[in-house]
């Protein structure tokens, strides 16, 4: 029998607010344990939460980007359970009145486009981090209280690949909304995956299991692939699926049971009495709407239209918002849009991948890249020199014009000067001259290279080729 999988996701996205959700503590990553803490986020007696308005705004912005409806009145609730990394042993979350309702994310898998529905988006606080040592354990509460936006999808993904595509598309939109750094290594995005399978032809969904706390999109892909197969195997073996929470072991590549439905927590939600309901007026939403950035797809279309670059280029550029921003900034200083795109897609992206840096952080500023493109276009330097100059810029920054001047890299365009080098090359390589005469055209390329070497790369290649050809065919 054939089984159809269904996947729904709960995605926790860490917002990039400067301070925590309910107190003034900093949110920076990598501080020594328990340095970014206060009575509020440590759950000290008498300490009380107050709402970080920026976190509310970020969540609403994300909701607007995803097409959600913004609840005019939402509220916070206490979700109770005991765990050492929970300072108050309840988490302030949102139960029945989340900030955002509905919305969707378009995805494409194997060329087929589809839209995945968003059920709701709510705001909550993160917990601390348990750390285990040889003979003791500790908790680092730096992360406790950092705002988390939880995005819950409808159970609409029918394959692990769709779930993966959803996460990539969601990440891209959230990056565009600029509400999260989306840094997976730092745990900025964490997922719970709900999976079920049902026999083909059956309408109602099968019993689901929930895989908790996956930190990577690849992990979601592998874990849901495993879990779906496991469920199919259980059903085919005549067994039935138990509703339960499971954990994914990245080393062994299997999921295992954490707790069954009977052992599930009764979270005893009730309204957080220390906080007032959150009221967001229609005017406020309208105001925020005006500050919304373009969606990636809109930007891609605009790039093709405005800069006349191929769709392929536009897609590559908009995939990462900081790269797309970089491109647009460069295009303010150069009208050679396609050339700018080429340089970014090859050299800049290569450098970013290699060094793991963001386009906003590198020493080559967009206007200096544009200047480099202009230098090549006006034949002041050739492409070879340009790459060399860019290499210097990656390391030291600076303006390419200055580097070219300081290092004497201006392209040699004087025919007389180049002719002397051509003659020298011909004289020093009689064998290649003879090969060319025998019809080996590759010899010409070798000779071009020799001239370029003699010119230290500065000779205008076209001039070199023209001169060589005319001399050899004499």
């Amino acid at each position, binding site marked *: 029998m054939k089984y159809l999988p269904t996947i729904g996701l709960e995605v926790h996205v860490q917002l990039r607010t400067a301070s925590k959700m309910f107190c003034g503590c900093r949110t920076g990553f990598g501080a020594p344990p328990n340095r970014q803490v206060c009575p509020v986020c440590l759950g000290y007696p008498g300490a009380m939460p*107050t709402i970080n308005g920026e976190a509310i705004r970020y969540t609403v912005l994300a909701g607007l980007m995803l097409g959600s409806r913004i609840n005019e009145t939402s509220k916070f609730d206490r979700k109770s359970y*005991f765990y050492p990394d929970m300072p108050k042993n309840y988490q302030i979350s949102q139960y029945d009145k989340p900030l955002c309702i509905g919305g969707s994310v378009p995805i494409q898998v194997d060329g087929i486009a589809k839209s995945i529905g968003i059920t709701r988006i709510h705001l909550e606080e993160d917990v601390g981090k348990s750390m285990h040592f040889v003979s003791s354990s500790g908790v680092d509460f730096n992360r406790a209280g950092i705002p988390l936006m939880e995005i819950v999808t409808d159970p609409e993904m029918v394959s692990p690949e769709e779930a993966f595509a959803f996460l990539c598309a969601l990440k891209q939109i959230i990056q565009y909304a600029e509400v999260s750094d989306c840094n997976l290594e730092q745990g900025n995005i964490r997922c719970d995956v709900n999976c079920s399978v049902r026999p083909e032809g059956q309408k109602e969904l099968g019993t689901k299991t929930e895989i908790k706390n996956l930190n990577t999109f690849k992990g979601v892909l592998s874990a849901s692939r495993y879990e779906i197969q496991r469920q199919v195997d259980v059903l085919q073996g005549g067994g039935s699926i138990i509703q339960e929470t499971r954990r994914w072991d990245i080393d062994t590549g299997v999921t295992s049971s954490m707790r069954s439905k009977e052992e599930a927590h009764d979270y005893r939600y009730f309204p957080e009495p220390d906080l007032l309901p959150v009221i967001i007026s229609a005017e406020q939403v309208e105001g925020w709407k005006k500050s919304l950035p373009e969606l990636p797809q809109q930007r891609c279309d605009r790039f093709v239209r405005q800069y006349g670059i191929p769709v392929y280029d536009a897609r590559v550029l908009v995939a990462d918002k900081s790269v797309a921003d970089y491109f647009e900034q460069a295009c303010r200083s150069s009208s050679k849009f396609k050339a700018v795109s080429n340089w970014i897609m090859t050299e800049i992206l290569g450098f970013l991948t290699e060094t793991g840096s963001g386009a906003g952080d590198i020493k080559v500023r967009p206007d200096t890249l544009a200047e480099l493109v202009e230098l090549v276009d006006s034949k002041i330097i050739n492409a070879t020199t340009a790459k060399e100059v860019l290499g210097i810029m990656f390391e030291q920054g600076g303006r390419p014009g200055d580097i070219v001047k300081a290092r004497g890299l201006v392209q040699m365009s004087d025919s007389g000067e180049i002719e002397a080098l051509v003659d020298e090359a011909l004289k020093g390589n009689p064998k290649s001259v003879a090969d060319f005469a025998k019809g080996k055209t590759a010899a010409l390329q070798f000779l071009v290279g020799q001239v370029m070497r003699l010119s230290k790369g500065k000779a205008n290649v076209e001039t070199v080729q023209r001169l060589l050809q005319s001399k050899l065919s004499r």
Partner: protein
Amino acid sequence: MMTDLAKLTAHEVLDLLKSGRCSSEEVVNELLTAIRSNDQQIGAYVSLDEEDAIAQARAADKARAEGGKGRLLGLPIAVKDVLNVSGQPCTCASKILRGYISPYDATAIAKLRKEGALFVGRTNMDEFAMGSSTENSAFKVTRNPVNRDYVPGGSSGGSAAAVASKEAIAALGTDTGGSIRQPASFCGCVGLKPSYGRISRYGLTAFASSLDQIGPICSDVRDAALLLDVMCGKDAMDSTTVDLPVTDSAAGFSDDLKGVTLGLPKEYFIEGMDPEVEKAVRNAVRTCKDLGAEIIDVSLPHTEYSVATYYIIATAEASANLARFDGVRYGHREDGIDPIDMYCNTRQAGFGREVKRRIILGTYVLSSGYYDAYYLSAQKVRTLIRADFGSVFKRCHAILAPVAPTAAYRIGEKVNDPLQMYLGDILTIPANLAGICGMSVPCGVTGKGLPIGLQILGAAFKEEDILRVGYAFERSMGQFSRNS
């Protein structure tokens, strides 16, 4: 050197300090002497750092010599052991908070500190403010200074006993269901529970967040007004505080009650009420009439549901509020084979019976399947109780009622009957559920000499109304409380 400084009111002490007729160090020394000689018997304090008290007093005297002008400069205040004062213990009279030292000041404390107040001694209470007699303290028994066989009331029993025994000039209490007004009544002090949102709760170890309020327990109404004025106001750390201009609550004080309408709710004169209490309150009503007030009959029809409503809402909130006491970050910790075992052992050893009872009750009413029947219904009844007061306060400035159905009872008398103890709060609980303000002012004594309190309730944020009534009434009584 002055004598009997400890027997003065706060405003009298401040007048002497301002005029240079006594020093803060002298005041503190007299208090310490009184505490040393009496507190063995009374048991008002759970902790007291004498050296620190004298150091604070000397610093205040120095500040005054250098031109310091804080409104409370040099005034020592006793603090219920539920409020955080930086550097002091805050046990909530619970074993589970043994060893905890507050790293910060509650907002109310910070405001008092800014005006120069000193924090001398931590007063006993029912564990986590859960109780009406201070018998639920994990540490000691507090006795009623008027008659040491009797309870001082609770949960702020230590604060009331300290003021009544002249071991404190003024004290802070907290009131979740009557915990300021009832002990003030039992000990013959003035106790003010401000409106919900009037004083920041930041730094008050929460029992029931939607009901808790900090307030003063002192020897006269003027002192209550003074401390309220200093502590009140919007606080960025407590979202539930209201943004109202801070007023001079004593500005409207006068010796008569002309133009004041007072309501008498029939539901507050309940069956089983001690006739002596009823008589004293009815006499007080007559006194107010003689002072020029118009007395009208009013009705608060949902009063009978208030105790049930309260014990659902308060315990539900408490079950979450007290979850943080787990031994992980501060306070007492018992060993365990794993974290959950450690929690269980810690909470088993750390919490007393009444606290456990309320945590279990609160956990139950919030449980899946029971939420609608209990918590949600209680919230609806709460709305009705609030509406009762809303319509009554359209017709009168304040309500007069007893604080409790009886005067103080004997130590141990009700300790094994929690329901009887809960029912004793029926007249104070509605004010907390409605978020309105209330005050207890002494209005007489029983045949055994036990104090009786007159409860004056006012609309939310109309503290000046009840203070005015309390002041005129107190004047006409000749400041009864001073002689207890």
